């Protein structure tokens, strides 16, 4: 259908800006379900209640209490380039779980149909017949894991995959050995908070020599009002093993901000490989910046063994505020760390994200590719540290930080820190900042393509290097999501 260009032709971008409201957050619905929630507020009693609800062993309660006491001594971090009113930690509900009809081991048959429907609607069917072939899913709803698919199939090869609570019951020795070993409870303010009140999450153990036969994935959903989500993920890849893990997340549209403070710990032993991919689509708030998730997450992987490799890939399109730095500690000789990131900040979203690559072992290598997209009033910050330790003979790092601006009200900021203590290190750093210009958009139009096509092709071209690191099903999803999140936001 032909549009009319009036004599006082608005520029293509202005016309698009006027359509800014057209982008809808598709995952914004609320599931009406009975919840078992505790009162709002945080105290030692609350920590004890959470632990008791989960019937935890004494050592875990002790871990939580130590973390809580330490957290009370810590100030909230102020160094990130994000702005938000102080969070009232006493107004948050720290535990909310959908009521279950049956206790004891859960099978898919016991899961409330409303929950199954919720995940179905989000495009994550939990019936194994309908599920994506080759992807096992652990579904976390508010504070608890509600279902895990393909458990039996994974069990056959010795892969342990399921909810964190279950792992505490069934494999306490593994949890005890690794919990807090990469991210200690005292690490930072939000990690301490998480360590005190975490409710569930995913646990994964790949035994020696096993290449996990399918993609493992956790789908996080916040549903209840005024509730924070504090999940904990622990992935251990034993010698010569390999696993690819995916994480997706959404939340309903609500006017108030909700807190999500997760901790993810990865451990890669000798010659093991962990690939961790995230497509983060928490509710970003509305176009005026009202509501949205505060996503304050600590993610860290330890390459403990020689020749081990940890690769982080993230596509961050959601959340009002993103504060996360998936990092690698390269302890083993010849170990490899990678960080591929696309972070998008549209409307009033703020993202402060990046990575830390800590080179300890000899001949360790790291690669950082960060792509920041800012639109509307969005503020996007890359913050990264590459540290080469005294003994990290022959370490190498390559960093590339690119920023793309859409419009003139947004911002891109880059804070790369480099700390080299061994003279044999080779460091490379490249950075670019570019803007989608009206001329570029008109170039597409003069070839028959719409302005929307123009933006999506430029953005996809910009992100190509990162998207190609994602597993196939996720890559398509991520491209769609980037398109949706940017709909109409050219300037």
């Amino acid at each position, binding site marked *: 259908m*032909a*549009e*009319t*260009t009036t*004599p*006082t*032709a*608005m*520029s*293509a*971008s202005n016309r698009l800006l006027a359509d800014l409201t057209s982008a809808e957050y598709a995952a914004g619905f609320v599931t009406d379900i009975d919840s078992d929630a505790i009162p709002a507020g945080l105290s030692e009693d609350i920590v004890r209640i959470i632990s008791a609800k989960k019937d935890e062993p004494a050592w875990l309660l002790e871990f939580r209490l130590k973390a809580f006491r330490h957290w009370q001594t810590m100030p909230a971090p102020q160094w990130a380039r994000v702005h938000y009113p102080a969070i009232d930690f006493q107004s948050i509900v720290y535990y909310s779980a959908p009521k279950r009809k049956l206790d004891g081991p859960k099978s898919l048959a016991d899961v409330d149909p409303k929950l199954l429907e919720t995940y179905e609607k989000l495009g994550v069917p939990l019936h194994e017949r309908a599920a994506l072939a080759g992807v096992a899913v652990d579904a976390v709803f508010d504070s608890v894991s509600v279902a895990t698919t393909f458990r039996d199939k994974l069990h056959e090869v010795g892969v342990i995959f399921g909810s964190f609570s279950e792992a505490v019951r069934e494999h306490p020795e593994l949890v005890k050995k690794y919990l807090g070993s990469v991210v200690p409870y005292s690490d930072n303010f939000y990690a301490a908070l998480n360590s005190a009140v975490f409710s569930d999450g995913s646990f994964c153990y790949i035994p020696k020599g096993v290449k996990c036969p399918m993609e493992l994935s956790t789908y996080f959903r916040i549903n209840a009002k005024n509730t924070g989500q504090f999940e904990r993920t622990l992935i251990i890849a034993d010698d010569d093993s390999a696993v690819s893990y995916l994480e997706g997340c959404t939340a309903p549209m609500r006017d108030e901000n909700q807190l999500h403070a997760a901790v993810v710990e990865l451990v890669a032993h000798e010659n093991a490989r962990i690939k961790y991919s995230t497509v983060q689509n928490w509710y970003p708030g509305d176009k005026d910046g009202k509501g949205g998730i505060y996503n304050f997450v600590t993610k860290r992987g330890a390459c403990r063994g020689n020749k081990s490799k940890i690769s982080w890939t993230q596509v961050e399109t959601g959340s009002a505020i993103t504060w996360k730095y998936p990092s690698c500690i390269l302890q083993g000789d010849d170990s490899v760390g990678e960080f591929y990131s696309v972070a998008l900040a549209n409307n009033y979203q703020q993202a402060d994200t990046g990575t830390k690559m800590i080179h300890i072992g000899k001949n360790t290598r790291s690669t950082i590719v960060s792509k920041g997209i800012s639109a509307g009033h969005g503020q996007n910050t890359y913050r990264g540290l590459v540290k080469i330790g005294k003994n990290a003979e022959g370490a190498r790092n390559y960093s590339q930080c690119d920023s793309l601006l859409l419009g003139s009200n947004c911002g891109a900021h880059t804070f790369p820190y480099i700390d080299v203590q061994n003279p044999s290190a080779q460091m490379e750093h490249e950075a670019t900042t*570019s803007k989608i*210009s*009206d*001329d*570029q958009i*008109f*170039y*597409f*139009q*003069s*070839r*028959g*393509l*719409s*302005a929307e*096509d123009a933006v999506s*092709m*430029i953005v*996809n*071209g*910009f992100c*190509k290097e990162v998207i190609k690191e994602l597993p196939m099903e996720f890559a398509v999803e991520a491209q769609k999501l980037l398109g949706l999140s940017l709909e109409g936001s050219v300037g």
Partner: protein
Amino acid sequence: MLRITDLHANAGDKPILKGLSLNVNGGEVHAIMGPNGSGKSTLAHVLAGRPGYTVTGGEVLYKSSPLFDLAPEVRAREGVFLAYQYPVELPGVSNLYFLRSALNAIRRHRGEDDMDAIDFLAVAKEKAKLVEMDEALVKRNVNEGFSGGEKKRNEIFQMAVLDPSLAILDETDSGLDIDALRDVAAGVNKLRSEDRAMIIVTHYQRLLEYIVPDFVHVLIDGKIALSGGKELALELESKGYEWLEKEPAQAR
């Protein structure tokens, strides 16, 4: 094909076109010449629908319908093509993907099916050969890191693939050395056809030695001051534009 009647247009707030009239039929090649600031590029951009230009009067009929009722991308789908004086770079967007998307937008507009990547590759290769475009460039990102000459060549390659009814070439000769100019002109000549009209905007006569026009028009201060055959270009080459600027009435 194209009938321009008493066209007035501003670039920003500044009146540039002041009553321009022009008739272009299918198969014809028209050269628009004129001094800097006379409105040559403005005409090209107004026809393509570039933002920043405002039509303040007059009428343009393209294939017997009002052109300005169409959004820029719809004009392109209807067969209007602008070869830019300064083609922009599109980092990260591959030439092949870009052109196939454009071609499919045009095909969809005509009610035809999309062309798949394999069929398209064959078309692209054939057209690249026609306009002597290096295949390596075809596979690179649109104009990214291209030399001035390569960018102009890429414009002609795009024109060959998209097969427009009306091609407007805006100062295609600018910034080209003589060899590149000859090659680009040869590409354009291969694309001349009975159902395609071309408007060639140029400051210098030298391009017209290679692309011989059917008509030459001289644009002075937003109006066509003089029209003639290809020999007019040679006259301008020796006399310059000054005599027309001084005595437009007499010249007419």
